[in-house]
């Protein structure tokens, strides 16, 4: 009999599985659940994008592409990033097409992390950064961002966290789960603080297109002093409702993208070919579709924020992504208790803030990737629940 505990890597074993997995299992198998729990668009991929994928299959485009991705797609990404965010990347050497934004994050971290290197991760944030840093042999250094700062990453917080071993900072904005964004001045302050250092910034901007109101998304690399130290991560899942196509990209300085490409070449080979053809269409001709989805999200965002505040669960205005992050402190329950009891009593599924780091305690994440009718029914039940536990 093989003792698998001895076979398995100590590093992998040391990565703690999410403590709320049990809660997830219950929620996912429960009948009649009204969920505000998912992190993916309810929209289908725009038809013209699907159609482009189908056409590529019909014409027999079923082979590997170059490791970096189709030249045509890299050209489109280069044009898109310039057009939308004002940053210029050379499609020949500074862009890599990956399997979702996730692979790009993993590749970026692995390309620069030596054992013992510290990588700063602001939380609450998406769950992948800490495990990815650990798997690369790095040491995650957590910064607990604060509600009173709108969950932005600030220079005083950075100053406390940066050491001689700091290799990189993850910038997860617009942020899942808080909906926080970083404005120009916020990034400029970080840029000035980092001036003269070799500290890299991995800017995960997968929600870039989902920025609301008059303000536009500010790409970290577009801020003076940042481009040389930024590895920009983006992808197709959120803006174009293409989660299942698994397609993302990394842009950055050529020496770094070359090394990320090396990892990608050996681990992945190339991103799915059909998805790459579809993505060309998405970048070229989908501005109005993206705009339409954004308007719909914005409508739901306003309804959900106002709904929570009326219930008495304080909810700041999320400025990006598609989540609201209301405080449940007034109920006296912990985040997990709140979610478990809400699920049990009202069959409404939301995610405890603690899933995204200890600093998520006192909050829950609610997604508004649902129809307004669905959102309103969920709000009604949450309102009843809050009344009943008073």
């Amino acid at each position, binding site marked *: 009999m093989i003792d698998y505990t001895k076979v398995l890597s100590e590093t992998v074993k040391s990565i703690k599985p*999410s403590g709320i997995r049990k809660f*997830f299992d219950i*929620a*996912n198998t*429960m009948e009649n*659940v009204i*969920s505000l*729990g*998912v*992190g*993916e668009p*309810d929209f*289908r991929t725009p038809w013209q994008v699907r159609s482009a994928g189908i056409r590529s299959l019909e014409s027999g485009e079923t082979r590997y592409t170059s490791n970096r991705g189709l030249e045509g797609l890299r050209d489109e990404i280069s044009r898109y990033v310039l057009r939308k965010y004002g940053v210029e990347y050379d499609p020949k050497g500074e862009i890599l097409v990956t399997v979702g934004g996730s692979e790009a994050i993993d590749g970026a971290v692995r390309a620069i992390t030596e054992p013992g290197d510290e990588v700063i991760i602001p939380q609450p944030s*998406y*769950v992948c950064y800490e495990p990815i840093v650990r798997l690369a042999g790095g040491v995650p250094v957590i910064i607990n961002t604060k509600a009173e700062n709108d969950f932005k990453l600030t220079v005083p917080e950075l100053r406390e966290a940066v050491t001689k071993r700091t290799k990189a900072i993850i910038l997860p904005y617009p942020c*899942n789960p808080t909906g926080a964004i970083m404005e120009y001045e916020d990034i400029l302050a970080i840029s000035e603080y980092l001036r003269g250092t070799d500290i890299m910034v991995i800017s995960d901007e997968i929600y870039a297109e989902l920025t609301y109101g008059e303000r536009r998304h500010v790409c970290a690399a577009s801020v003076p002093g940042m481009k040389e130290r930024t590895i920009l991560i983006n992808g197709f899942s959120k803006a174009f409702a293409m989660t299942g196509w698994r397609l993302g990209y990394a842009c950055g300085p050529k020496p770094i993208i070359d090394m990320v490409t090396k990892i990608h070449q050996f681990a992945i080979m190339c991103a799915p070919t059909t998805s790459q053809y579809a993505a060309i269409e998405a970048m070229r001709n989908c501005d109005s579709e993206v705009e339409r989805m954004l*308007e719909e999200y*914005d*409508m739901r965002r*306003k*309804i959900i924020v*106002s709904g929570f505040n009326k219930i008495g669960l304080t909810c700041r205005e999320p400025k990006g992504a598609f989540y609201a992050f209301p405080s449940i402190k007034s109920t006296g329950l912990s985040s997990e208790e709140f979610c478990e009891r809400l699920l049990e009593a009202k069959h409404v*599924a939301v*995610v405890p803030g603690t*899933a*995204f780091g200890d600093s998520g305690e006192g909050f829950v994440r609610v997604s508004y990737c649902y129809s*307004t009718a669905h959102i*309103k029914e969920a709000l009604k039940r949450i309102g009843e629940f809050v009344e009943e536990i008073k």
Partner: protein
Amino acid sequence: MDKIDKKILKLLDMNARMETADIATVTDITEEEAAARIAALEKAGVICGYKAVVDWEKVDLDSVSAIIELKVTPKAGFGFEEVAARVAKYPEVESVYLMSGAYDLNVVVKGKTFHEVSNFVSRELATIDSVTSTGTQFVMRRYKEYKVELIGEEGDGRSKISL
């Protein structure tokens, strides 16, 4: 009409039953103001009515639609207005559009049976003085109406909870 009125119209165009309170929330105005603006838009004839999008194929009721292409000799001084207004008066007529291209008026007619619709066309529309020809095309099946796909992609397909 300002930006907020336009936004309200867009919202109601997507969902005519959207509650006034929600319209107010989305446009950052009070519920009273939203109600007043909607009333004003109705009064001004900008909002002309509210209708449900019904998939009549799912209803046990005889219903047939046809698109009639009318060629018309416009009258001096009146253009197409006079004949269009006359066609529009019939309760069988769902919509009337003046078209560019091969024919002049596009008329959507609804009735209980094929027979009833063709009778209406030959007796009523074809006999109008200025109408020089009619071309009747029956609707076989509806796939999309008012931006609503009637043969939609069913189900959500996502898990109930994911990070």
